[in-house]
């Protein structure tokens, strides 16, 4: 290639810029379709996400709603924010502090039957290590307690 020195620098700069801008555009496009949105039950009831879309649902595990299925590994429960209630199904080993009346963030998809199928549950580890979304749920807890 008989590119003169000065031009070669520009060509290299051009290639780098095109690749980086391409990467940026690709990233923005992919993020729009792949980012997982955070829902509270009221949002999910009002605006249900598409059934193949991975989202997260956060709220309180309603007291008395937790039921173990016969297979011994699946659990059904209801996540509530005081305004709406979403049934959730989870098969797996539950986090230690996952109990009724406490906060939870479920990662998964909303099934066509209106049950949220979680493939992962985030619960509080302990008093110090609280998932970020869960702090916002202190308000939800208050809302629920006020309705009682």
């Amino acid at each position, binding site marked *: 290639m008989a590119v003169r020195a000065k031009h070669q620098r520009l060509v290299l700069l051009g290639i780098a810029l095109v690749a980086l801008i391409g*990467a940026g555009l690709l990233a923005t496009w992919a*993020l729009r379709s792949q980012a997982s949105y955070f829902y509270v039950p009221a949002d999910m009831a009002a605006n249900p996400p598409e059934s193949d879309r991975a989202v997260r649902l956060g709220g309180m595990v309603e007291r008395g709603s937790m039921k173990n299925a016969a297979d011994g590994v699946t659990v059904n429960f209801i996540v509530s924010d005081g305004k709406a209630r979403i049934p959730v199904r989870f098969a797996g*080993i539950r986090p*230690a502090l996952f109990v009724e009346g406490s906060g939870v963030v479920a990662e998964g998809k909303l099934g066509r039957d209106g049950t949220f199928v979680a493939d992962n549950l985030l619960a509080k580890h302990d008093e*110090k290590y609280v998932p970020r979304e869960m702090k916002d749920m202190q308000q939800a807890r208050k809302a629920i307690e006020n309705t009682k």
Partner: protein
Amino acid sequence: MLPEIGLGLLWLAAALAGLQLLAGGLSLSANGGGMAGIVRPVAIVQGVLAAAAMGILIWLFVQTDLSVKLVAENSHSAKPLMYKIAGTWGNHEGSMLLWVTVMGLGGAFVAAVERRLPEPTMMATLAGQAFVSLGFYAFLLFASNPFARLYPVPEDGNGLNPLLQDPGLAFHPPTLYLGYVGLSIAFSFAIGALITRQVGPDFARAMRPWVLGAWIFLTVGITAGSYWAYYVLGWGGWWFWDPVENASLMPWLAATALLHSCSVLAARNALRAWTVMLGVVAFSMSMVGTFLVRSGILTSVHAFAVDPRRGGFILALLAIYIGGALLLFALRAATVTEGERFAITSREGALVFNNVMLSSILGITLIGTLYPLFTEAMGTKVSVGPPYFTPVSAMFAVPMFVVLLFGPMLRWRRDKFSRVSGVLALPLVVALIAGGWAFAVGVRHVLPLLGLALGPALVVASVLPLRGRSVLRAPLSLWGMVIAHAGIGVALFGMASDSAFTVEKLVAAKVGEVQQVGPWSIKLAEVAPIAGQNWTAMEGVLKARYDGGAEVTLRPQSRTFWAPLQTNAVSALKGRWNGQLYTVLGDETVSDKGESRWQLRLWWKPYVPLIWIGGLLVALGGGLALLSRVAQDLKRRLARAKGGHRRDEVAALAKGDAA
């Protein structure tokens, strides 16, 4: 008394950093030459003082001195000694002190041994290092004092997060920090070279060992961190694209690019401005990572303390250093003269491709990691995970791996593709066989197929640069490259195997029942209580047979710590040459009829350990390359020391170094 001494040492070290900046800066001016003599000694003493402060903090943790707030909040007298020591950096303040210590020692090391650069560039470099250190000293002293006292003194400490009570933790953060902060040296070199306009092969040769060293630590740290996440979190995954993982991946990507552009600059005097730019970017990514992790702005086990003031402080440091360095770059880049030319089909061309792809992966990782922050500012909460990162990064990684098949065989400056295309047949055949085999055993997804085909091809292709050479006489640095590139292929094969072949089973098992997972039959023999130094546990005893072979025992536990109170699953693993069995014990469930069953999560993960073996090979390759550079440098120094009558030899060595 001891904590006050530690704090005093820190203030002294900070003052010395100020002096180092001042003297280094003055020595650059026309009439300040007299200051140059003190810069190196000051840098060394500063590093030693910071290390002494770190030593005192470790001692306070070992003694469990509860009058120190940090110890009381993060340690406990009943903790095993190793975790008392590791607990020193298992918290915000301690980890920042470790950061400053590593930075100080790094600067001291450079000041003590680096003699290749022109003295003014060296002074500018050490002043730059001091400038960066000063910001972090200020952060430590004003916003995160590790030696603050607590009154009244509590009866015992809060303990350390059990997830962090693991042998891996003892070494993982210091290793990563050596990498992160080691890049600060590349950053300072870049600043020094920009200030004195001395960007050339000598600069690249002086900087390369430091970048290599930092990069090796990063590679080991990331590999160890990935393995830690794999077996401690009990989710069976090895990479989650968690912000903290990304925070370590981004500097690694930049450092990898820097390493390769450095060799272009050292060998061919090309890519001058680009290399300096990468030097700035690599450490900037370390700081961005620290900001993301330490500010608590993103959720993570690593987010120790959520304190907006600290986040603001680190953000200000980021703005000053990254903004300042980029501004300096913008002002000086035009005066960095154009390097040598090269054709597109050449070693340089392939390395430019490698650099552009690595930078693109870095870009998409950065965007994906920061995206939740942007949307949250707009009022929408999102999280970004593997569905985004994996395919998008693969779009750049796969072309890069394809070029890696032949790039190292190309000649510098100008080459013909037809010269290497014949040799390339071998890796291509391997790729076809491996891909065909994967397809035949039922792998249908595109990315795993590509990984399974490219991995073995890369291993074969990486050895090809050795062809036609005597294996024993090939230079060590060539061996380093061969092993590191082969490691990439090995790791890629492991990663692809994980998504292609992993078999998972989740059951509630009665004691005595046998489960089938892939080729394994696993019997839950019993579940019994067991106690450790600061925990109690239920331990499952699993008797497993591979394909009817000999029986092996695995003991997964569900462990409950009491300081702080927390339950964790402790997985049990059994490796074979062709994979790993991974078992987790969950809760007991009692059915309506009163039957007791235990939840078990079982995985058979064929070839998955290759991920970490590959990572270690990459680090080993880096180690060999570093060894060869250091050996060359020592030889040259020795030759120089032997004086003038052997000048011929020196010239010969210098020639060998340039080749």
